[in-house]
């Protein structure tokens, strides 16, 4: 039998990073404030996890402007999508495996 834990990604151990990825999987693009509102986290906390995901190549960051205000939007990369679906599949396998 295949090891069910293969595919689990340590990066997604964190609840906030998992939340960010969940939101980005179903939204083409989302800005910092909307993300913050949905995940109910502080600016600093969210920023740290976003940087972590960006450094791992899982998300893309686009800096733009709305009027004079900066508007940073985030979207998921191909690599991020793959890592996340693998992670979910591994979680599902763990549950099936125990039954």
């Amino acid at each position, binding site marked *: 039998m295949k090891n069910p834990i293969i595919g689990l990604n340590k990066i997604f151990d964190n*609840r906030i990073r*998992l*939340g960010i990825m*969940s*939101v980005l*999987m*179903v*939204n083409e693009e*989302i800005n910092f404030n*909307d993300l913050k*509102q*949905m*995940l109910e986290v502080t600016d600093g906390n969210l920023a740290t996890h976003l940087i972590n995901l960006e450094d791992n190549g899982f998300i893309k960051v686009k800096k733009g402007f709305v009027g004079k205000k900066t508007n940073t939007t985030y979207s998921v990369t191909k690599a991020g999508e793959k890592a996340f679906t693998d992670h*979910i599949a591994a*979680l*599902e396998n*763990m*549950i099936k495996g*125990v039954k």
Partner: protein
Amino acid sequence: MYFKVLFMNEQNQQTLDTLQDIKRMMERSSRFISLSGLSGIAAGICALVGAWFARNEFKPYYKSYDYRGGYAADDFQELKFRLLVIALSVLAAAWVSAFYFTWRKARHNKLPVWDLTAKRLTINMLIPLVAGGLFIMAMYQYNDWKFIAPACLIFYGLALVNASKYTLSDVRYLGLLQILVGLISTQFVGYGLYFWALGFGVLHIIYGFVMWWKYERNA
């Protein structure tokens, strides 16, 4: 062995929780889920009350029509204006009451009422709705009253079908039914108000009740 099973169960529960968290996050961030069934019922009641007022406006018009023995332009303009006032009042009352119940549900579930999903829902609903509204105003402008009620129903139905991608997917069926009622009513010119009351009144109330039964009864 016993300890191992216990450990596995606990871990299993954690994994399940995580998967449910992911699912909830995906749903919450892509659809506006606070739409309350009571909003539908309230909007339906507004529509029925409005239809009743509108019906009362027709009575003196036809009486005068019979009395004069024919069509009178000033009577028609008067009726037209009164019906427009009723229509706009119904629209305002329906929006306010629908918004109230949805706001209440969002607050109860501790969810923001005006977030990204609400904005998306509003924009995508407004596109067919505003186009339809302007089209109907043009018919009104040229005194083409025959297809005003069917157009209200059809454009509203299209707006709901479009909006259903951004909120509870059940809204799609309400939209399809509104379109159907609108199309049928094109074959019964002169009975527009009754079809209008059926679509905006009765269907809203039934839909609202079903939604409330399905999602909110136990909340």
